[in-house]
């Protein structure tokens, strides 16, 4: 305990210098955590994917559709328990700037396949009843102030024209990482209008969503589906929902890499700063270390003092950084909610922040501790 008091009081010896170092570590650890959370937010579609869901799409490209006639054949594949389908709709609301994710789906089967979209029973019934009915995530509803019963005039882009849909259901996410910023309405409604307005585009779907009995069977089922449509006019590419989501992210891989790199650099910089503080602190005290050694303390004890001080410094900063991250992440989630459907500081990120702080302490203390360990008594003490 005397040793602990010794270490802690040394921290108080240069209050300003150490406070600034702790502040620097706190901010770096916070930045590290927030950058990591940003990357996680990017991957939210991937992490929210279920292992027993597959996506089948046109093998050539996502922009080419598949015939609705495939549904029966897919359903017949062994291991398929659920089947739904839909299209990316890509409409905007009032102004092109008001971008949000919207698509059409085969509603009943889609809701069966996505139990994480939680809808009150009465709203669900109303949604299924109304062919122009639309389900929206609660964050999206809050953003535009939509309530059940509101008619929403959507401007079509991929499917030109005015689409007056009616908000019938507002879903909430079952899990923290469930995306609550999406909207989807009936594929039937789209298809009916296509039959009239652009018959060539009728009876087409952008993707099939497939539920598999067991996650272990996913790969086999995907293979069976693709085999079934090989050499047909529209070949399919079936992959897990996770791989499908990953495909979107790979487009922004460079940005994500850059963010990862920056979060690493932040830690390296703060390591250098903390190491400098520790080097100064240790250099001032070489006489003290030599005295301790003269008294019979080993190099290990002296190194422990330095390492302990570096650890105390960085863990203090790390704790402050983690504590700061929570409210700041909350603010970001609310201010940038339009861009990040989910911005959540995960337990894993908090653990990594703590680990990063510990590594900063160890690295910062290493060289000064080594020097202190090797200090030669007679060289330092008064002659």
């Amino acid at each position, binding site marked *: *305990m005397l040793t602990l*008091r*010794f270490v802690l009081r040394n921290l108080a010896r240069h209050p300003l210098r150490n406070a600034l170092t702790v502040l620097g570590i706190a901010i770096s650890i916070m930045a590290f955590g927030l950058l990591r959370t940003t990357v996680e937010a990017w991957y939210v579609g991937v992490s929210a994917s279920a292992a027993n869901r597959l996506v089948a799409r046109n093998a050539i490209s996502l922009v080419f559709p598949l015939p609705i006639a495939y549904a029966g054949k897919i359903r017949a594949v062994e291991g398929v328990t659920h089947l739904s389908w839909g299209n990316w709709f890509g409409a905007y609301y009032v102004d092109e700037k008001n971008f949000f994710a919207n698509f059409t789906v085969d509603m009943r089967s889609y809701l069966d396949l996505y139990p994480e979209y939680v809808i009150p029973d009465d709203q669900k019934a109303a949604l299924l009843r109304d062919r122009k009915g639309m389900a929206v995530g609660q964050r999206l509803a809050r953003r535009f102030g939509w309530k059940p019963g509101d008619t929403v005039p959507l401007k079509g882009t991929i499917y030109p024209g005015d689409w007056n849909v009616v908000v019938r259901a507002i879903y909430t996410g079952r899990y923290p990482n469930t995306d609550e910023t999406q909207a989807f309405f009936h594929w039937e409604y789209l298809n009916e209008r296509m039959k009239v307005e652009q018959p060539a585009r009728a009876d087409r779907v952008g993707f099939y969503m497939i539920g598999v009995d067991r996650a272990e069977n996913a790969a086999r089922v995907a293979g069976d589906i693709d085999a079934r449509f090989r050499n047909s006019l529209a070949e399919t590419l079936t992959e897990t929902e996770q791989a499908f989501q990953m495909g979107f992210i790979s487009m922004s891989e460079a940005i994500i890499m850059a963010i990862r790199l920056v979060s690493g650099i932040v830690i390296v910089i703060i390591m250098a700063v903390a190491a400098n503080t520790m080097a100064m602190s240790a250099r001032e005290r070489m006489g003290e270390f030599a*005295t301790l050694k003269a*008294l019979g*303390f*080993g190099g290990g004890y002296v190194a422990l003092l330095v390492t302990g001080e570096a650890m105390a410094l960085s863990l203090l900063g790390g704790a402050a950084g983690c504590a700061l991250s929570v409210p700041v992440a909350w603010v970001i989630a609310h201010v940038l909610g339009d861009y990040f459907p989910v911005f959540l500081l995960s337990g894993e990120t908090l653990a990594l922040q703590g680990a990063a702080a510990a590594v900063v302490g160890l690295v910062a203390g290493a060289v000064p501790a080594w020097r202190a360990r090797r200090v030669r008594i*007679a060289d330092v003490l008064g*002659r």
Partner: protein
Amino acid sequence: MNRARESSVPPRSAEQGGTPDMDAAPGAASGTAPFLAQSRTASPPILLQSVSKAYRRGAQVVPVLTSVNMAVAPGEFLALMGPSGSGKSTLLNLIAGIDRVDAGSIHVGETDITTLDDADLARWRSRSVGFIFQFYNLIPVLNALENVELPLLLTPLSGRERRERARTALAMVGLSDRMDHYPGQLSGGQQQRTAIARALVADPDILVADEPTGDLDRVSAGEILDLMSGLNRTMGKTIIMVTHDPRAAERAGRVLLLEKGELADAHA
């Protein structure tokens, strides 16, 4: 070659002057400090044989000590004098085991400390040698009691026992009322007394002091010297003290002169 010869400075007799600090401390000599009393007869003799030491300055080798022979009897109070740069501190450091000889041997009792490895030498120091430095070398962030307790971390004593002993040692140097003061809150003399308590607390046989009064005013210096000669007389501690203050040397039982790396009679 060089042989240490006894000087003719008469040892101060016990009756002369007494030791105010020791007297001021309740139960200083023994009584409450049984752990400090046992060393009275146990101090080992110290014997240096053909000790040489040189420092390298760039490509140049600077000899500091050349084949020094010297003997210190158990319980002796020895003063080492000599001009600055003559190697007094070097010699003291070798005897105290914080520096290494180039050649020769240093026996303390049965042990030739020049043959010990670093870890064994550190262990030997913690048990056998108490250090008193010119600039006290107290730990500024620890209070007087904690400073004195520090060396006992190397013993198997419990925290309670350690503090008990540290209190006793501080009482012996007359600082019972300053235990929770930090070095910065103590005068030079009080700091040096704290350092002496720290040197004593593990009950070593030998005390080494490098210019212990060099940084003190005359009155404080006198008190420190009184304290040291009291420890020598009442507890039988062997003391080797480097000084160039004749008044300090006067307190020693014997004075050795070191000049150009060689020992000589103090009155040569």
